[in-house]
Structure formats: C-alpha cells, structure tokens
C-alpha cells in the first residue's frame, strides 16, 4: 500500500495510530476499572434494594406470610440487577425466586424480629446479576471507547488541518518558490516573499534562505563575471597561442613536450604523417646531446633564464633550421608549489629560408664565383686559423703555391671562356684530390692557387708524391671546345709550416719563392722550399 508522502496526511496518520493505541489501552483499563466500579455500585444498589425490603421481609418471615414473601421476592426480582432472591425464616418459610446457580457473590441481610430487638428471625439473600452488570459495564466502556475514538478523529481532523494550514501549505509554497530557482541562473534567485506578520520557524527559514541566497547570488555573479573575464582572457591567449606563427611548446623535467600549438606541430609533422614521431623534445629536434646539455644549463645554472640556439634538424626528408628560444618558466604559482616541476618554454621559428640565404651569402662572400674555391680573403683567414691550430697541436701544415704555366696563351688562343673552363677544370681536379674537410683550396688570384693540408707528421716523400700527383692531374688535357683540347701545366712551390714560417706571411713568401724557383727551373715541376 502506498502511503501518501504529504506531511499533513502522514502526521494525521501517525496521530491516528497513536490515538488508536492509546484508546485501546485506555479502554482496556477503563473497562476493567469500570467493571469493578460498576460492580461495586451495583452491589451497593442491590444491598440498598435489600435494605428497602428488609422491614417488610422481616414481617413476612415473622408472620410466615408466603404471599407477602412472594410479593417481596418477585418485586426484587423484577429489578434488572437481581438475578435471584431467597427468603428464609424457620422451617415453614424457605422461598427462592429466580436463578442462583453460578452466582459467586451474594448479598445477605439479616431479618430482625419486628418487635423484639436483637432477635434474628430470618435471612434475605439477593444474587446480583453479574452478566447484566458486566454487560452494562461493557456497554459503558464501549460508549467511552466510541467517544474517545470520535474525539480522536475530530482531533486528528483538526490537527491535520492545522498541520496543513500552518506547516504543509507554507512548506509547499516554499517548495514551489524554491523549485523556480535554478542555481545555474542567478537571475532566478529571487527573494522568497515572507508573510510579514508570521514569526514562526518557516518564516525564519525563509529569511535565512533569502539571506543565504543573496550572498550566494552575489558570490555567483562575481564568480560569473570573473569567469567571463577569464574566459575572454583565455580565448585571447588561446588565440595568440594557436594563431602564433612561431611554434610554442612546454617541456617538462623529463624533456617531454606537454603542451604545443598548431604552429609547433606543423613544424615537426612529416609530410603524410598525422602526428609527431616523438614527444621527447631533444629527440624530436634530432639533437639529443646538445639539447640535453642546454636543458641542464638552463635548469640548474643560476641566473640563466633564457638561451637561444639555432638547430638544424631533419623532419622526414627535409632539413630545417630552427631558431629556438628557451625560457625557464617562473610562474608565481611555482613559489607556492615547491615540488612543482619547472617547465621550459620553447619558442621556435623556422629559419631555414633565412639560414639558407645566409649560407648562400656567406658562401658567395667566401668563394670565388667561377671556381667555387675559397677566395683570397676567406682563404687567408682560414689559412691563419689552420696555421695556429697546427702550431697549437704540433701538427704540420703542408702548403702548396700553384701557378699555371702557359695559361696566358690559352686565353689568347681560345678566348676567355676557354680560359675560364680551364680554371674551373683545374679547380675541380684540385678539389678532387684535396677533399678532406680540413683541406683548404684557394684561388689566390688569376691562375694562382693555394692548397693547404694539415698532417700530423711531416713525411717529405708523401708530400712530394701528393704534389706530383696533383701536377700530373693538372697536366691532363682539358677539353675547352668540342674536339679541342688544350694542355696546361703548373709550377708548385711546397712549404711546410710552421718549419718554413711561423706566421702565414713568412710561410707564403717562402712558398712563393719555391714556386718561382720551379718556374725558373723550367716549369711543370714541384720544388720544396729549402732554407738557405
């Protein structure tokens, strides 16, 4: 059975149950006590009845008047309270009327001699009707119970009405008002109206709710404003972050990328791939050792908050030059949370184009436009460096000064283009033989070349062999036009630094003199400088 959830019905029901129980218990006690009381009253009534008849009964017994006795007996018996009557006096007078079986109690009255005091002449005994008395008591109790029930029902009715009026209805009203409030919409948090004259708990509750709601609304609208502001700011920052042309990412203590923007992603996604190959920053930039070192520096070295680095890295088949700006993030929050790992912000620019342009410019500045060998200015700088390095490392610098023989006739006979072709071909052959990274090949000017090679130990034989080999290479015929070859030769002066000169100028002078010596000795040969 479903019991209504409404308070006033439940309260009424509770009261009804209690009232019923109380009624039952009370009725039980009232019945038992009522029965006793009724019995006592009725017994005393019976006794009074007997007393009323005492004189007459005494007379009837005195006169042995059966008729009078019968009259008395029937008279008494006509009473509802009396079940049986017995009148006894002497042998001739033994009268009984009604029933007297199963009667526990009896009321006897001594019948005295009407004329002689203190002489008993008989006994009048009345047997009260216990069942009748009990029925009466029961009837009374039932009436009482009924009254109590009616009383209870009336009380329940009015209590439930009172509860409904005073409690449920205001509560219902409160609930209805409350249901219109949506905490997510502060506009709906209207003040609940209070019945001004009432000072009861519900009114106080409403007032409490109102003040709470007022505070809440204030807080919430503040919060909302703040949130909107934050959202605006966030959107703006996000826009900056996401629309930035520079790649931006955050790197944690483990060198892993935690956050990155689309520009960053586009830098490192290979063509055809969907995502980046790794989130490990040093590996992603294909330069683990250097970057690890850099991170260690920026993290641990006091006072270093920013570092920049240009990194060449390979993404797929592409080689990119990336300019990176590393900055240690010193958020204010970090000071609060000590154990928060420090993050490093990296801003990356793709500088490949610029770098290439710079390389190009540098290359053009350093190299001869025709032969792509180093020009004199760059060559001299490199030679200086190489000589210093050799002195420092106790290495030797093998330096050859080469001047082409019979070059002028080529120019004159075949034209400048052919001359240029000869120069280019010679340069190619030089480079072909001196192709170590530390080798320095310079077009010193016109048809003059300089070659320098660093060697750990000077071996005259080896040096001479290399020089002879080069000479043979140069002397190979060069095709200047279709079906037209021309032969050039060269005079080579060989010096060994720093033995033949501690400074470049000195070394060069010696090389030059050895080369002239070769020319004077008939060209097409290698002369090793000898100190005089």
């Amino acid at each position, binding site marked *: 059975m479903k019991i209504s959830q409404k308070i006033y019905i439940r309260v009424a029901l509770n009261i009804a149950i209690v009232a019923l129980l109380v009624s039952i218990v009370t009725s039980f006690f009232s019945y038992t006590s009522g029965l006793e009381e009724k019995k006592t009253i009725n017994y005393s009534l019976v006794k009074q009845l007997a007393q009323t008849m005492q004189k*007459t009964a005494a*007379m009837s017994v005195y*006169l*042995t*008047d059966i008729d*009078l006795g019968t009259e008395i007996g029937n008279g008494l018996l006509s009473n509802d309270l009396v079940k049986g009557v017995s009148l006894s006096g002497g042998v001739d007078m033994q009268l009984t009327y009604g029933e007297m079986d199963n009667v526990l109690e009896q009321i006897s009255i001594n019948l005295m001699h009407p*004329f*002689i005091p203190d002489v008993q002449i008989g006994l009048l005994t009345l047997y009260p009707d216990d069942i009748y008395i009990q029925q009466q008591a029961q009837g009374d109790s039932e009436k009482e119970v009924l009254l109590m029930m009616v009383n209870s029902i009336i009380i329940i009715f009015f209590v439930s009405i009172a509860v409904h009026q005073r409690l449920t209805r205001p509560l219902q009203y409160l609930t209805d008002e409350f249901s219109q409030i949506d905490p997510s919409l502060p506009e709906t948090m209207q003040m609940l109206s209070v019945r001004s004259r009432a000072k009861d708990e519900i009114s106080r509750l409403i007032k409490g709710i109102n003040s709470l709601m007022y505070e809440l609304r204030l807080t919430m609208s503040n919060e909302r404003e703040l949130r909107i502001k934050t959202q605006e700011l966030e959107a703006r920052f996000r826009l900056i972050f996401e629309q930035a042309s520079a790649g931006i990412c955050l790197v944690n203590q483990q060198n892993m990328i935690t956050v990155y923007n689309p520009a960053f992603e586009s830098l490192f996604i290979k063509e055809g791939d969907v995502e980046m190959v790794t989130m490990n920053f040093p590996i992603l930039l294909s330069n683990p050792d250097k970057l690890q070192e850099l991170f260690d520096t920026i993290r641990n070295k006091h006072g270093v908050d920013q570092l920049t680095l240009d990194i060449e890295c390979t993404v797929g088949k592409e080689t990119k030059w990336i300019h990176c700006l590393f900055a240690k993030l010193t958020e204010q929050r970090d000071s609060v949370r000590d154990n928060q790992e420090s993050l490093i912000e990296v801003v990356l620019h793709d500088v490949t184009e610029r770098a290439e342009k710079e390389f190009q410019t540098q290359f053009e500045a350093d190299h001869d436009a025709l032969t792509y060998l180093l020009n004199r200015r760059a060559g001299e700088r490199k030679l200086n460096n190489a000589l210093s390095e050799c002195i420092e490392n106790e290495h030797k610098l093998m330096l050859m000064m080469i001047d082409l023989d019979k070059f002028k006739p080529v120019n004159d006979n075949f034209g400048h283009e052919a001359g240029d072709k000869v120069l280019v071909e010679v340069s190619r052959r030089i480079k072909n033989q001196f192709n170590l990274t530390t080798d320095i090949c310079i077009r010193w000017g016109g048809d003059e070349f300089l070659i320098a090679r660093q060697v750990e130990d000077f071996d005259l034989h080896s040096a001479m062999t290399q020089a002879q080999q080069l000479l043979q290479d140069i002397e190979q015929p060069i095709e200047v036009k279709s079906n037209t070859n021309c032969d050039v030769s060269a005079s080579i002066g060989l010096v060994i630094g720093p033995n033949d000169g501690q400074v470049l100028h000195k070394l060069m002078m010696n090389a030059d003199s050895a080369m002239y010596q070769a020319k004077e000795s008939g060209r097409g040969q290698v002369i090793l400088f000898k100190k005089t």
Partner: protein
Amino acid sequence: MQLIKSIMSLLLLVSSYSYSYSQDLVIVVNKNNSINELSKNEVIDIYMGRYMTFPDGKSAKPLDLPANSKLKSDFYLKLVNQSEQKINAYWARVFFSGRAKPPESVESIDDALNQLKDSEFGIAYIPESKLTDTVKVVYRLNED
C-alpha cells in the same frame, strides 16, 4: 405551715396521679382457659398476628381497647415499645396480604370483660384494678 400543707397536698396529688396511671396492665383470659401463664413473646405473637392460637393449639381471639385510649397506647408501649400509630401502620401493611388480622376492638374494659366471660378463646389486657373473678391473669406487664 400553710406552705408545708400545700406542698404536701401537691405531692399527694402528684403521687395519686402517678399511681392511677402507672398501675400494672395484666393480660387476662377466661377463667376456664387451660392456659395459666404466657410469656411476653407469646403475648406479642398473639397480639401481632403471628399465631392465631394459644400455645396449646386452641384458637385465640385477642381484644383491643378503643383506639387512642391511654390504656391501649400504654399496652403497646410496654409490650413492643412502639406507638399506636406504628402498630396501626404495621397492621395496614400486614392487612394487605390478608393472612393475619389485627385484634378486635372493644368499646371499653367492661365490654372486654363481658366478652371474656362468654368466650374461652378471648384474651385481653386490663388494668390490674379492674380484675374480676371471671378472668385469670396469664401475664403481667410490669413497669420494667
């Protein structure tokens, strides 16, 4: 002397008055009645209608002196210590069932004596001074 005389005469008067009214009442029956003596209870039972016979079984016919007479009221006061009105009320109650009858009233003491003279069943009460030889005393109602 005059005073003593008057007091004496007064005392005499009082004593003679008291004498004339405090004389004993006696219960009498016909001289030939076999009953010689009755107890007070037997007298009561006969006069109050309990028994209509003498103890020996012979019928008894009690006679009563005129109503509201000094003697009658004295008799009932001495016998059952009740006033004449109460006795009348008693008889009124008993009369209703018809079993017992009150004593028959006579006109005077002499009338009672005359009836006793003729009837062996009669029984009456008279002052002791009115005793005749036609009746005999069966019970004496004393002052005590």
